[in-house]
Every structure is written in C-alpha cells, then in structure tokens.
C-alpha cells in the first residue's frame, strides 16, 4: 500500500469511467465469452488468406530455390533479412513494456502490456521465419544447433553472428513467451471461473494451470514476474544488439559500424512502440476498451516514440558524419553516394527513411498531436514504413555497391514470392493476433485491478487528499480503516 501514497494527482487516471473490480472483469472478458463480430471474421479471413499466400511463396522458394527471389551474386540478402530485422525490432516493445517498465514501476504499462507482449511473441515468430526460410537448404537448418553428432569434431561456428542470432532470438522468444504466459494465468483462471460452457471450462482449466488465487499463488506469481522481468531486461538490449552484429562485425562499408548496437536497440523500441500504437488503436476501438487504453496511454507511448525516433536520428547523423570525417573512403562512398545522393539508384530509400523516422516523429513534441488518434495512427504506420526502409537502406544500399565496382549490382526489386513471403508474415501475425484477441483477455485484468483503486477515475479524486496528508496521518488512517 505504500505506493498508494505516491500516486500523483497530477497524473491522469489510467482507467476511466466508474469501474469496480467486477466491471473491469466484465469489460475485458466479455469479448471472449461472446461470439466474434463480423469485423473480426473479415479480418481473420483476410489474415488467413495472406498467411496461405505466404505459405505458397515459401513452398515455391523451398521447392525451386532461392532463385524464386531476385537476390543476386552481389546482393545476397534483401527483403528476407530486411523483414527479419524489421519484425525483430517490432518485437521489442512488448518486453520493454513488461520488463523494464515493470522494474521502473510504471503503472501505465498495465493497460497495454498484455497486447504488447502478445505482439512481441507474434512478431518474433514472424521474424524467425526469415532466417529459417532464407536458407538455401532449409532442410539442413538443424546444422545451426550445437547438438552432439556423428560428424566427427564438427560443431557450429561460435564466431558467426548468425549463430549468436540463433541463441539470442530463441532465448528471447522463450523468455517472452514465459513472461506473457505467466502473466496470463490469473486472467485465464478468471475466464475459467466465469465459464458456463463445458469446453470452455475445460480448456481454460488446463490453460490456467490450476490457479486458485491463493495468497501463496499470488506471492509466487509476483516473484516469478520479477525474476522474468530481471531476465528479460538485458534481453531487450541484447537481442537487437546481436542482430546488429550481423552487420557490425562484417567488413562491408555501411555495415561495419560500431554505432550499430545502441542504434539498433533504439530503432527497435521505436518501431515496436509504433506497432503497439497501430494495434491498440484498432483494438480499443473494436473491443470498446477506450476506458482502459486511454489517451494518457497513447500519449505516453508517443513520448517514447519521439524520444527513440530522435535517438535514431542522432545515430543516422553520427554515422553520416563519421563516414565523412573518417578516412575510410569506401565507407564514405557507401554513405555519400549510395545513400545521401538522392538521385543515386537507391537514394530515394534513404530519404524515405529519414523523412519517416527522423522528421515525422518530431510532430509529437506537440501535446495536441500526441493526443490526436488519427495523427497517432498515421504516424505509427509511417514510422514502421520508415523503420522497414532503415533496414533496407542498411542491407541493400551497403552491399549493392561495395568494394569492387565490377560487382556493383543491377537494380534489385523483389519478386512476387519475395513480397508474398513478407505479406505472409503479416498473415501469420494477424491470424495470431485475431485468435489472441478472441481467446485471451487483451488487457491484463489482474494488473488493471491492481492499479484500479489508485489510478482509476472513480477512485482518484477520493485519494487526492492523501497528497496533503503527512505520512503519519496516512499510516494512521490506513491502519484504522482496515
């Protein structure tokens, strides 16, 4: 109860409307218990169609070869790894929100963390598709696992950043999944307890792992959350750092850059929050959860976007400056000609990236804009376009013209199946998200209840006098009332 004291009356309520615990449960669990809306079906079917097209695209690629894509002898990675890094980046906000914000006791995270964590998991699932299916011989993909084998002393190559990726991504995925699931357990138990249908009771019964809500359960749950948060926090930083090593440890000008780890992490959070915005703006509308995902939530996340966007901007400029200031003329060429020159073949992509990532988020310095839903939605899309192009710029504009001018590539555009693979991951992502929104509480019911009485609109005014009380008075009151 000590935190109660420090809930500032200046802060806006995090739960709007006259809510009590029951009402909260009602609001959030109801969509699970009623049949899905028409809109849900439309969205779900579109997602499945996209997913199927993705599956077909991969089928083509696996059967006929990576030649189903337009990569070439100079550009060995294009859309595949661009999409990989992009999805991994998107998968950063969830863990940041659940882990780091939990450790920092940011109460506002409770409204958004469940959906954000789900998004993280789905995004990492999408991301994982690319390094797997981009392999020329995917049926031998298990070679990347360090398992005891009969091939003599043959082992994986621990020097390779791709191998680090294998560990980083799989660890991240596992921890994120555990974190998300452990958070779900009390809510699943709530659904179970409310269930009137037999199958529902059984299903949620299994999923809830026998949660009874006993104090012991809560105590363990809290400890587990803290432990997982502690484990996840370094992961938020490490995953994209490791992904950035794919490039930073190479010799290719434009890839070989020491600034990459922090720059990638900032970019990842940036794009992750943008994606959270996109999804939540839709979710709160469709599931009528405006009272739980409030303007305050959106504004806070927009602040994160303008902060990380600016960090990314500084990184871009630093990189540019160093390429000019440094003595590596090959790096100078990669930046000055391949990117900065608007009229060079891929110059447009650099400016698109700059415009979307650095310039456009600056609009969020204005409170009015931060709280404008349409602006936020538009910006969230724009940021993710920009962040996609950031990865594209890094990957393609570096290698398409590197050391030997003889090997400078022709213009690379994706084939239909390359696009299909990307679109297919959207299908996977949204299929998962639709199923999630149908079968799981999209907002952490238990956690919302946790803050309801200190940050709920209905309770907050009553608490305001606490602010003026001395600590002794406060304790006196608390001990006598309970």
């Amino acid at each position, binding site marked *: 109860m000590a935190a109660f004291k420090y809930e500032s009356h200046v802060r806006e309520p995090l739960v709007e409307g006259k809510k009590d615990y029951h009402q909260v449960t009602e609001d959030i669990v109801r969509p699970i218990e009623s049949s899905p809306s028409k809109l849900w079906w439309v969205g779900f079917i579109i997602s499945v169609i996209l997913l199927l097209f993705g599956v077909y695209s991969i089928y083509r690629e696996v059967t006929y*070869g990576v*030649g189903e894509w337009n990569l070439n*002898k100079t550009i060995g*990675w294009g859309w595949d790894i661009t999409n990989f890094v992009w999805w991994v980046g998107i998968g950063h906000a969830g863990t940041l929100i659940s882990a780091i914000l939990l450790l920092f006791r940011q109460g506002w995270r409770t409204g958004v963390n469940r959906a954000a964590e789900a998004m993280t998991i789905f995004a990492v699932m999408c991301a994982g598709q690319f390094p797997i299916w981009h392999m020329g011989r995917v049926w031998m993909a298990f070679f990347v696992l360090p398992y005891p084998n009969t091939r003599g002393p043959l082992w994986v190559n621990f020097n390779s950043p791709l191998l680090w990726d294998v560990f980083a991504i799989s660890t991240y995925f596992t921890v994120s999944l555990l974190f998300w699931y452990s958070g779900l357990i009390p809510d699943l138990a709530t659904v179970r307890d409310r269930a009137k249908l037999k199958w529902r009771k059984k299903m949620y019964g299994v999923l809830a792992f026998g949660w009874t809500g006993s104090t012991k359960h809560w105590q363990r749950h809290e400890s587990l959350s803290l432990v997982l948060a502690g484990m996840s926090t370094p992961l938020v930083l490490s995953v994209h750092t490791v992904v950035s090593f*794919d490039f930073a440890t190479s010799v290719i000008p434009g890839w070989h850059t020491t600034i990459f780890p922090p720059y990638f992490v900032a970019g990842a959070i940036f794009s992750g929050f943008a994606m959270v915005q996109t999804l939540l703006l839709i979710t709160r509308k469709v599931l009528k959860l405006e009272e739980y995902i409030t303007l305050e939530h959106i504004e806070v996340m927009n602040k994160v976007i303008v902060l990380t966007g600016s960090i990314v901007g500084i990184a871009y400029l630093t990189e540019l400056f160093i390429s000019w200031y440094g003595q590596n003329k090959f790096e100078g060429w990669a930046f000055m000609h391949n990117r900065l020159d608007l009229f060079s073949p891929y110059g447009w992509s650099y400016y698109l990236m700059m415009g979307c990532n650095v310039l456009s988020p600056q609009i969020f310095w204005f409170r009015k804009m931060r709280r404008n839903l349409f602006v936020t939605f538009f910006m969230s899309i724009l940021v993710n376009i920009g962040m996609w192009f950031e990865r594209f710029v890094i990957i393609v504009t570096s290698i398409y*013209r590197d050391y030997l001018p003889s090997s400078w590539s022709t213009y690379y555009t994706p084939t239909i199946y390359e696009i299909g693979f990307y679109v297919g991951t959207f299908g996977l992502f949204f299929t998962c998200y639709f199923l999630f929104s149908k079968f799981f509480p999209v907002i952490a019911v238990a956690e919302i209840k946790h803050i309801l009485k200190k940050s709920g609109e209905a309770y907050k005014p009553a608490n305001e006098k606490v602010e003026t009380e001395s600590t002794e008075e406060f304790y006196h009151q608390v001990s006598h009332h309970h």
Partner: protein
Amino acid sequence: MAKKKYWQSFTELNQTETHQKLAANEFREELPVVSGEGKGIENASASRRDFLKYLGFSTAAAMAAASCETPVKKAIPYLNKPQNLVPGVADYYATTYVSGGEAIPVVAKVRDGRPIKLEGNTLSTYSKGGTSARVQAAVLDLYDTARLRTPVSISGDASTALAIDAADKAILEGLKDAKVALVTPSISSPTTKLVIAEFLAKYPGSRHVQFDAVSYSSLLLANEASFGKKAIPSYHFENAKVIVSLSADFLGTWLSPVTFAKQYAAGRKFDQKNPELSLHVQFESALSLTGSNADKRYTHAPSAEGTVAAALLGAVSGTGATGVEGALKKGIEATAEALKAAAGKALVVSGSTDPNVQIIVNAINNAVGAYGTTINWAAPLQVAQGIDSEFETLVADLNSGAVNAVVIYGVNPAYEYYNAAGFAAALKKAKISVSLSERLDETASLCKYAVPSHHFLESWGDAEPKAGSYTLMQPTINPLFKTRQFQDSLLVWAGSANTYESLFKSTWTSKLGSADAYMKALQDGVVEAPATVAGAAFNGAGVAAAVSAVSGKKGGKYELVVYQKVSLGDGKQANNPWLQELPDPITKATWDNYAIVSPQFGKEVLKIDIADSRQADKYEVFMKKPVVKFTINKKEIELPVLIVPGVHAGTIAIAVGYGRTKAGKAGNEVGKNAYQFLTYSGSTVSWTVSDVAIAKTETWYEVAQTQTHSSYEGRHEVIKEVTLKDFKANPELIREERNAELKNYGGLDNYERDGSPYPLHDRPGIKWGMSIDLNSCIGCGACSVACTAENNIPVVGKSEVLRFHEMHWMRIDRYFSGNPYDADSVQTIYQPMLCQHCDNAPCENVCPVAATNHSSEGINQMTYNRCIGTRYCANNCPYKVRRFNWLDYTGADSFKDNQLTEGVGKLDPAVFQMNDDLTRMVLNPDVTVRSRGVIEKCSFCVQRTQEGKLKAKKEGRVLEDTDVKSACQQACPTDAIVFGNANNPESEISKVRKSNSQRYFAALEQIHVLPSVTYLAKVRNAEHIAGHAEHEGGAEHAEAKHEEKHA
C-alpha cells in the same frame, strides 16, 4: 556344504505358493506407478518396450525422411579391365583442336574413357602450350546434343536416318559423273590434302574450294601483289619493340591469336631491374580486345582505315602524313617516329579486308625492316587460304550448272556467307549435295544427304598451321555416334581401298622413317622442322596505285564495323553454352549480340550522357537497353545498343556468330546474324559499311551483362597501374602507395602483424599462392572457360545471367578510365578476379555452421554438404567471388521436377542441354557437382593440388611446381597466372613475387584479409594513366579524375 541353504524369510524357507509366484516376478512388490486408466504399468495399453519401439521407429523414420537420399545409380565395373586403364586415373593424349582453318596442338585429359579437358600442348613451338576460350570449350562440343548422330537423307525440313551403306550407295549414285565442288575451310593437313586429291581425281572436272567464314583474302591478294606469293607469312610479335596494329585484333580473333598472344606477352613481361616494354599502338574504330591492351590508341572512322595506313606510310617514308588531321595526325607522326626508331624491331599488322590497305601495310613493314625480323616468309601461316572470289565463282557455277554436285565439310555458307540466300538458292540447283559437317546446321539442312564427320577428339588427322609445324590428331574416345570421319567418307566415295587411319599411319611412318618415330610423334602430338627466318623481296610497284585507291574515302555520319567476338568467333561453336556464357571482354555481355556505339551516339541519339553519373547510373543498373533500328545496305535490323567508351564517335560495331537458326538448343535464335551486312567488293568480302541510317525505337531489350559498372572509381586499393616513365623515375612508386594505404596499421613492414589485434598464425608446410600479372593479362577469358570445364561450373543461361546469377569462379573485371567523350584517352584494364583465399578470410568467421574454413595449406575451402545457404559469406566477401546456386542449375538436386521452364526462376534450354546425360559426360569426376542452395567458389583447383601432392608423395620427394598447375594458369595464353607453394623459396610463385617486389600488391590490402592471390601492377608504355591523380601534376589530372569517375 553344497546342500547348505540360506533363506531370507520364513515364507522363502517354507516355499509357500505366494512366495513362489512373487519370486517368478521381476519386481516382487507391486510397482507404485499407476497408468492413466488406473491400471498397473504392466497392464498399460502401451508397454515400456512398445514405447521404446515407437520412439526408435519414429526417430528412424524422421531421420530417413530428413536425409532425402538421392537414388543410387549403379555403375557397371569392367569385366575385363583394359590394360592401360586405371579407373580414377587420367590418361593424356596429344591431339589437335581444329575449327575452320585454325589448328591448335592440345593435350586431352581422358578420365575413364571420356575426354574431359583440353590443355595446350607445351611441346609445340607454334602455340607454346597456349589455348583460347574456344579451345578450352571445344571439349564440350564433343558431347553436344545437337550433333548429328547418323547419316541422313534430307528433304525439306524432314531428315531420315540412313545406314552408312545405304547412304554411301545413294551418294555414289548421285556423284556419278558429277562435277563436284568440295567445299571446306582452309585445309592445312597434309594427309587430308592427299585424300582430297584422290577424291578429285575420281571425279574429273571437280574442284576444291576453300571457304573461310572470316577470310584473309585481302592479305593473300596483297602478298601476291607485293611478294608474288598468295600466302600469309608468320609473325614474330616477340621480336617487335614497336607493334602497330591497324584494326587487327591479333590478340583476340585475327589469324592465329593464341600464338600471337604468347608472342605479344614476351614484350609485356616486365623486369623491374631493367624496366623496358614493347610499345603497342592501335589504330581502330571500335574497341577490340587488342585495342584495349594498347599503350596508345587512336580512333578513326572505319572508312578512313586506308587513309590512316597511307598517312602512316607517308610519315614513315618521309613524305608526311597527309589526309589526316588533329590528334590522329599527331598520333600517326609519333607512331611513325617510333617505328623508324625501332627499325628491324617493328611490326605493323592490319585487319583490313581491302587488299590495297594490306599492300600499303606491306610497304610500311618493308620500310621499317620487318621482313626477315618480325615477319617470317620462311614459314608461312596456313590457317587461312580461302580466296573470296573463288567461292563467288562457285556460286555462279552452281547457278549455271557448271558445277552440279557439292560436298561440304566444316563450313556453313548458308549462314556465314554474306549472300547466304544466294548460296542457298544455288545449292538447290545441284543434283546432289552432301554435308560432312558434324551437325545439321543451316547448310547441311539444305543438302540432300548428310554424313556426319567425327568430332576432332574422335578423329585421326594432322594439321600444319605454320609451314614446318605439324600437329597430329588421334582419337581420344570411340565415336559416340554413327559418324564417319570426313576423310574416310571422301576415300570411300573416291573408291579407295584405304582408310584414312591407314593412310595417315603409312604417310607419317614413311615421313618419319620408322614406326617408333611415328609412335613418338603421336605421343608428342607435334612434329616440327627447325625454325628458320627469312624475308622476301618486296615489290613496291602496286603501292602508289593502292594509296590512290584508298585515299579520299569518306563515309556517312554513322559507319558500321562487323567484328568477331573473342568468345564466339565466326559462330561455329554457337551451340556451346560455355562460350555463350563467357562475358565478352569489352562489353561483359553474354548470350547476345548487340550494336556497340560510342558515348557520343549515346548522348545524341539515345539521350543518355554517360559522363553524367545520374544518367549513367540509370543506364547501367537496368539490363534493358534501348533498341535502335539500323538500315545497312537497305537491310533493316533492330538491335539493342551498348555504349562503350573508346569507340570512335560515328562507329557502330556488330558481332558475327549470332543469329544461328540451326545450331542447337542453346545457340538458336541468340542475337542476330551480322554476316548479312558484309559486302562483296569485287575481290574481297568487306567487313565495313560506310553508311548506316539509324532510327531510335521505343522498345527496349535486355542484354545480360555480368559487369555493369565500368570505372574503378579511382580505387587504387583495387587496381594499381603506373606508366613506364613514372616507374623508371621512381620504381618505388607502387610500394610508396601501398605504404601510404597501410601507414595507420603498421605500414608495409609491420602491416600483417599490426593490422589486426589477433595474434598471427604460423603457416608451416605448404602455402598455396597465386600471382597474377596485370601487365600480361590481356583479358581474353580463356582462364574463365578453363575453370568452368575443370570445376563443373554450371551454365545458368541468359535468363539467369540477367538476374546477375552467373556462376563463374574466375571472372575478368574490366575497367575503363579516361574521358568517355575522347575515345583516344580511354584506357582499359583487366583484372582476373577469383577467390583470394584470404588468410584472414571474412567469409570464414561468419558461417554459422563452419561450412567454409581454412585448410592448413592456406586454401579457403567450401564444404558443400555442410553448407546451408545463408549467403552471409557471399555478402561479407569484399571481392564478391562467392556464387550461390539459386536454382537447380545442374539437375543434381534431391528434389525432383524442380526446374521451371516458365515463371519466376525459369531456366533456359541451355541449362537443360547441359543437364542432358550426354553432355554430363564432360563433367570432371574429381569435382563435386553442386546442388541447389549451396555456395561455391574457386577452390584453387584443390583436386589438382591433392593429385600433385600424392604424386610427389608416391615418388618420395618434395612437391615441385610442375606437380600442380591450376586450370586457369594452364589455360592462360600469356602466362599471366603463376600458382604454387609460396612457402618454398625455390618455387616460381616465390620467385615471381620476389623479383617483382616493386609491382607486387594485393587487392584491398588495407582491410587486412591477407589474400593469397596477389597481383603485379600494370605498367603502361603511355604518357599518363588516365585519371590517376597521384602520379601526375597540375589541373589536368584533376579534370581527368573527374572524367574517369563517370567513365
């Protein structure tokens, strides 16, 4: 004691029933485990044993399913092994490559009865072991699916197979009392000449016509006028200090390029202690391979070739260079001075098809004392003997009926003749026409019968490309099909009892004196008379007339030059996918012909200014090129155009050898036929057209280039070149430049150690290394084809080259520098590029599965069956030499039916031709055929290094240079590539590196990848290096640098 009984309990002592029951059980007490149904584990529906069975079965099934085993094809072992044949050990037979009149002594490598590789025969003083791309590719022609497999009778488009007896009967019937024309390419073979004489004797009134698709009539006629000999002397480029070529592509396509390249290289080998070079000046209109190697190059309109020759003669003889002006005049005067100064050590050659020009050139050569020094009349070249007018007469005679039977071998006039339609019509009039060519080509399919001859690798024979230099031919494989060597056919039709083999054997045995000498000659492959050099008396009577005949010739705004490409030549090997896929040295284009135009043409007609980086970018990053309609001699043709710096402003160049219609799957309908633009001038067939009308079309056409950017952007870390003058002034120039690049990392001396935070590895034992001399590399591409043949490199076809997917392990990077709008200023440099086998290889550490790693001998090796295809290594290779198997190019994949013929990832017919079981016989069994999805790259011919080491080991000695030669090294006609053990101070590689220390450099040395392939800088005998800022002074070079950037 034995009866003593121990008991544990009373029940045991008493042996109750319960106890006995329990004792029989494995577990005496009830097990605590309860199954789902509440029964004991023993009663569970799936027992533990079953569980293990299921586990084992499912694991095994998963393993079996995952391993995707390819079906095993069984080979049948020898029942009785031939005595001299050891499976897996190659035999080598000396034989001769023959195409048209060209004959190159070669050694065929035969593995398990199949010839799989050709190497130059080093015993020959004629070729000195040199080969060309076409020679290297010829082994593939043996296994060409388009070869005609049986004798056939032809009517219209249909052909019916005939037994050889039936064919002979029908043909003998037809030839009865006929006046036969035997049409062949130039024949230098002494025994074939005997056969031909016997055949002609049988049919009175018959004659032998030699038809050369690329004829040297002008040279023969001019020599007849100047020396009274209708012959071509041999040339000695190695003796020339000054070489002047007037449009003669003597390194690529002119006369005998393999031998000339070898000789030429002698004058380009550079000795740093005694820095001298020959001077090579080229006057030409388009940019030829030879021109691209010239120290000084002057361009002129094609119609001015006579004027230039006359002016050069004037300048040499002191009457002054008239009829020319500006830079060209200055160039001619300077060249004349150089020629005069090098009298007796000078050589002028001309590629002109005008006899008058050749007469003028003879006069110049006479004036500079070339005869008897650099030109040898004692041993004439016999590779070209055809006189254009003779074939012209034959066509007339066929039309008039004076000749009524035609027997054709080895030539294809229905495609190669300027008036192909006229020839085809005339051929129809013959009462019998028989083709002896190997395939049913354009001409053969117009004949009534075709009795296909053997491929040269199945044949007996000989050739005398240069008088006194014989090269013998012996079969290396039993004939694959029901074919018969053309000499045998002629003998049969001549009614001779002899076979060609017996004739050949008896002729040579008697010539050499003994059967042993014959066997020895067959083994060596060459028989050579002692070399003598002689001049000839020059008759200058016709020179004045020749000068007046050529002077004042003017062409239109745009003029045409028809030329041969280095890869395809006259087009006889058009169905050879290796050659089709070999990038042209100048344009780097494959699988097509096109019109080469100047940057001026680009700017004026196409509105593409290649000096403008934005427009150049746009032009080069897309494979599609604008199509222009050319009207040439009233014939219209639409061709894509490629803008090439160094081409004279008004010149358009189109290559022959394309547009075949009956070449085969791979060669059909590739490009367009340019032979149709040749004209007959009354005495010779001319390869230039002085007026061409152009019209830009709105269409585009994709030309598959393997390199699209042409400038090295001043990146001297990649390429180093220096002028002879500068080198003499400061021989340390290259080393200073390297030191400057490396100064922040320890400088030249400590770079290897200080350039990296990691400790150095020692490299005991063998350390393979390669040195490539950019000074002698002429960019011909023979190495590239040799590598393809040796290492089973897949052909990907035009559709895939267009997608930048070609697979060559060895490529030649070609860079231009200079001002694109000043053709004379353009300099070209070639850099063979292959895996550099870096000691600190960036590809190795990024592979997640360690599929590419370093051998203890310094070879960066690929483990194909470990590769999972992440392509990270290819991305991280600074040299971009790694190639990925994007699709199933080889048909070697374990996935069935995965080669598409349409849609995304479609493969061309050429790929399927290469995957035919017949064609696959060319594969080198020592090298894995790579499957889809893995990376591959140069292996330093690891199969050869292993073989060489084994050989040395078996003989109990240390490895020597002669034990191992890489395929590219062996093929190189100029010996630019040296390969060997760099740890052995006695090896050639060590010596070359040491004795050329001042030119030694590694490409991109400053990124500390420590390549095992090193280069020797190019030294140009020119005024300056185009666009080279550091070695020149003043504003001029700054401007040049700017220009170079855009070239």
